[in-house]
């Protein structure tokens, strides 16, 4: 009863100078699966996640999502949500504008934007 594999990290390697953050790291994640990376600090968890999001260039390795090789795809095109450790809120925008930003970037369609805005009331 294995669910379809959606995300494959294949042989990711990244060194920072002499420190090998990722050493031929591989991982497969199925659709709907909740995966947690645990480990002591400095073991490469953040590096792996950032690599997946496209924020960390790799020395070698491949990332496949939905059977598509996105290793060289820029972050903005990867359509992945990332919650940062330090929140990374834009200081000059209100909370609403912060939320809207992602929607504006992805959905050029304003109707969708309005619908999502109305959905906001659901959450508050």
């Amino acid at each position, binding site marked *: 009863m294995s669910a379809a594999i959606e995300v494959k990290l294949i042989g990711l390697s990244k060194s920072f100078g002499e420190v090998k953050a990722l050493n031929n790291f591989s991982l497969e994640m199925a659709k709907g699966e909740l995966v947690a990376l645990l480990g002591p600090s400095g073991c490469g968890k953040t590096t792996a996640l950032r690599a997946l*999001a496209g*924020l960390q260039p790799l020395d070698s390795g491949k990332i496949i999502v939905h059977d598509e090789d996105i290793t060289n795809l820029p972050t*903005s095109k990867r359509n992945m*949500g990332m919650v940062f450790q330090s929140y*990374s809120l*834009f*200081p*000059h925008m209100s909370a609403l504008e912060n939320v809207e*930003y*992602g929607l504006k970037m992805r959905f050029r369609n304003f109707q969708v934007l309005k619908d999502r805005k109305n959905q906001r009331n659901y959450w508050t």
Partner: protein
Amino acid sequence: MQNKERVISLKKLETNNLFRKSIPYLGVFPFALLAFFFLIWPTLVVVYGSFQNLEGGYGFGSLIEVATNEKYLNGFKVSIQLAAYSAFAGAVLGGLFSWAIANGNREGYFRRLVLAASGVFAQFGGVMLTFAFLATFGFNGMLTILANSYFGENILTDASWLYSLLGLVVVYTFFQIPLMLIVFLPAIENLKPEWKEASESLGGSTANYWLKIGAPILAPSFLGALLLLFANAFSAYATAAALISQGAPIVPLQISFAISGEVSRTNPGISKALAVGMILVVVVVMFGYFKLQNKVSKWVKS
């Protein structure tokens, strides 16, 4: 109740004795003395003296003269133009330069050298600056001679452009760029890389980021720096004095003529009225600068 009154805090002197209360203020006395005699007092002298008139009388005569005489109005106009152009050029070039430096190695030697050089260039005395540009673009300047030997007669041959408004703008921009770097680099470096990453992971391109996030966050600092550059150029005297610029009769030059020339004998108030005019312009500009700085500090704290 009585015990509370006897508690003495380390930070504040809670005593009713006026004498004991004023002792800490003695600590600032030497500084206050210097500040008073060499900053406050001269300013007061200037303001007071601007009310001096022809033949030593008192009134608004000098101030009105400065505000209405073609010669002085032109002086202010040229001063403001010079300051504005060089501030703008310095802000843009310096801003780009700041960005370029900020994106480099923050611990490296290059950056350190660049900052050291900027500190020196920004304070580079007007006289030395003038000689540097005369050595470059003057009638016997290095570039003038080079251009002449390669191109024959060209725009650089007649070096008198250096003495015009254009020349002054080019020379002033030379010290505006490093000043911009010094003032603006911290602002650019305060742009957290996480913001760019957050924007990217939300689907925004580089253009989106700069348009919607980078530029709005940097705007107050940039404008503030621009104002500072303006005030800096507006107040400058040495460069123009060393160039003895006839083509750009800026206010500081007019003030120096007023002090040392005929004018001071007939109407000692003119130089002071001109000075008051300068103070007014700079105060307005610096006020804007401080307002913008406050705005920025709100965000930096977050």
